[in-house]
């Protein structure tokens, strides 16, 4: 039987400009699982996302991250992506002059060997199929990468990329922010459609709303750079009802 995806984050400490944000985060995500990471602003949620992706401003001072047994922290940004990591940005970059279709095909081919590039026909078919599922009109393909996209359109563009690049671990950084109820539903459906034994999802969010659609298997609460509580879906419900102050008190009392 094929080995499923496995991400192991061990005691991760991350600094930005000399200030420690993550103070020993540990996490295990297996293929087929959806983990939610919740926390108040400033807790370090995005820091975890960027540190996993390898953003140069975030310095890992301690800890290990293994993706399917490979040392992720030892890899360059692009190597991590080709190893199967995908980050859906909270604020995706707008890159003028680069048509979406052009960029997507280049990204797909980055994972394929020379001589085995995806054919234009197959690419076109896959692109149209995924855009249809995400209710994106076809003219988006010729628009410049995220340029002039509304917040909702940008988020859908991130999920479109995820669908085409078939990652092993997808980190969704506050994908719900700026989405209305319809956008939320479409994006969640997009992610759910990709769920399977080869994909592990880390959904980083401040709010509970998206979790109603994504239905996580595990919920972790990040507070001041540490995961202070883990549980099932019910934890998210409790958090929604009682707020982050409740967790702070709980942790304080422990």
């Amino acid at each position: 039987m094929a080995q499923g995806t496995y991400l192991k984050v061990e005691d991760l400490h991350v600094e930005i400009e000399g200030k420690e944000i993550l103070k020993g985060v540990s996490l295990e995500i297996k293929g087929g699982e959806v983990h939610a990471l919740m926390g108040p602003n400033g807790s370090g949620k995005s820091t975890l996302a960027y540190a996993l992706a390898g953003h140069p401003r975030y310095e890992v001072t301690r800890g290990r991250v293994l993706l399917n047994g490979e040392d992720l922290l030892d890899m360059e940004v692009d190597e991590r992506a080709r190893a199967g990591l995908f980050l859906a940005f909270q604020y995706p970059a707008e890159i003028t002059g680069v048509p979406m279709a052009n960029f997507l095909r280049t990204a797909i081919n980055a994972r394929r060997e020379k001589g085995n590039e995806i054919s234009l026909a197959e690419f076109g078919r896959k692109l149209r199929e995924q855009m249809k599922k995400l209710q994106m009109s076809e003219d988006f393909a010729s628009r410049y990468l995220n340029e002039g996209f509304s917040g909702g359109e940008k988020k859908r563009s991130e999920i479109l990329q995820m669908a085409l690049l078939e990652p092993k671990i997808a980190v969704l950084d506050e994908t719900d922010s700026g989405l209305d109820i319809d956008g939320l539903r479409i994006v969640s459906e997009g992610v759910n459609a990709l769920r399977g034994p080869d994909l592990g999802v880390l959904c980083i969010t401040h709010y509970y709303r998206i979790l109603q659609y994504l239905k996580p298997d595990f919920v972790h609460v990040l507070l001041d750079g540490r995961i202070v509580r883990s549980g099932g879906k019910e934890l998210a419900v409790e958090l929604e009802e009682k707020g982050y102050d409740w967790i702070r008190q709980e942790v304080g009392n422990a």
Partner: protein
Amino acid sequence: MSVTTGISLSENGVVELSERLGEPGWMRERRLAAFKAYQSMKLPRWDRTDLAGLSLDPLTIYQGSKAVASPEELPGPLRALVDEHGEGSHLFVQVDSGRSWRRAGEELARQGVIVADFPTAVRDHEDLVRKYFGMTVAFDEDKLIALHYAAVSSGFFIYVPKNTAVSAPIELRLFASAEGVGVFPHILVVAEEGAEVTIVEGVASEDGEAQRVVSEVVEICPLPGAQVRYGAIQTWGRRTYNFTTRRSFLARDSKVEWIPGEFGGALSRSHSKSILSGSGSESYCLGVFFGEGEQHFDMGITMLHEGEHTASDMLTKGVLKDKGRMVYRGLTDIEHGARFASGFQRENTMLLSEEARSDAIPGLEIDETEVQAGHAATVGQIDRNHLFYLMSRGLPRAEAMRLIVEGFFDPVLARVPVEGVRAELYALIDGRMRS
């Protein structure tokens, strides 16, 4: 086997050149006047562009070369071009100072359009040439222009009759292969009333160890209502010092579009200037450059508004890597009396290395109240967030940079109205990003 001897720059040399080319007396006199001016002047002093490396003494200004009889005799890169060109396109290839090899669609002859090697035109179309030659760019404007007028021995004369629209671009390819020999092409374009023509000029050379000096002058003379598009793609060899002056006086309701692309040479100074003297005249410039190694580009574009209801716009974008250097001088000059003028310019440089440097000197001089004008110039590095975003999708760094650079050039390339030019510019940029 005859030995073609080179001619050195000197008064005797200039006279000898005139004899070899079989020119009429007035042309010889012009050369001598220009040579005199050359001797009396000092090298121009351009802020931020240092001519210390330029060697004008001794200088071989001419070396006879035989005409190219068939495409097989053309240098490699040009042969490929010939193959790519289909029926109906107009291709003229000049190697060194030899007679050009040509493949012109029958449209040109039928329409009475003249495309002649410049030295040939001086003899065969004497009246026309004499009327317009040197009227737009004077022989004594600076030492290097004077050198051009003393030593001119190649280039083309293009004449488009009244109300004639040439549908396919006229492509002029100049290639210098003789080592160390100077190149002095004159391009004289006369577009009669209502004429329309697109000209694409490509200049290149094969440089050995010796320095090569190029002094080129392009004069475009549009009569009322004429429209001329002039693309100039420069890929001179790495030992070339290039000085190109392009200019046009625009008559009423005429239009001139410049599309300069700077890629070659050790040092290349190119200046394109449109004087919008006729009312309703318009001029546009789409500039592209890509410097690497220790190249130095000095690119000037001037739009001088004199008539009423004139319009100009400049958009220039370029990339520098290694120790490449660019000095950009954009001037929108709106004179008193040029009412209802509209003049805009934008220039963006992207630096791909720590040592690359760009000095953008945009200028607006406005002496009239009822005008619209604006300018913007930026110099910057690749946006690191953009690079991170693309790499996070699996693109290796070099590929991500290439995509960003192509996107950077897109606003200019998308506006280039000549498909062939756009493709060639794109290929040059792509080639540089992969090297």
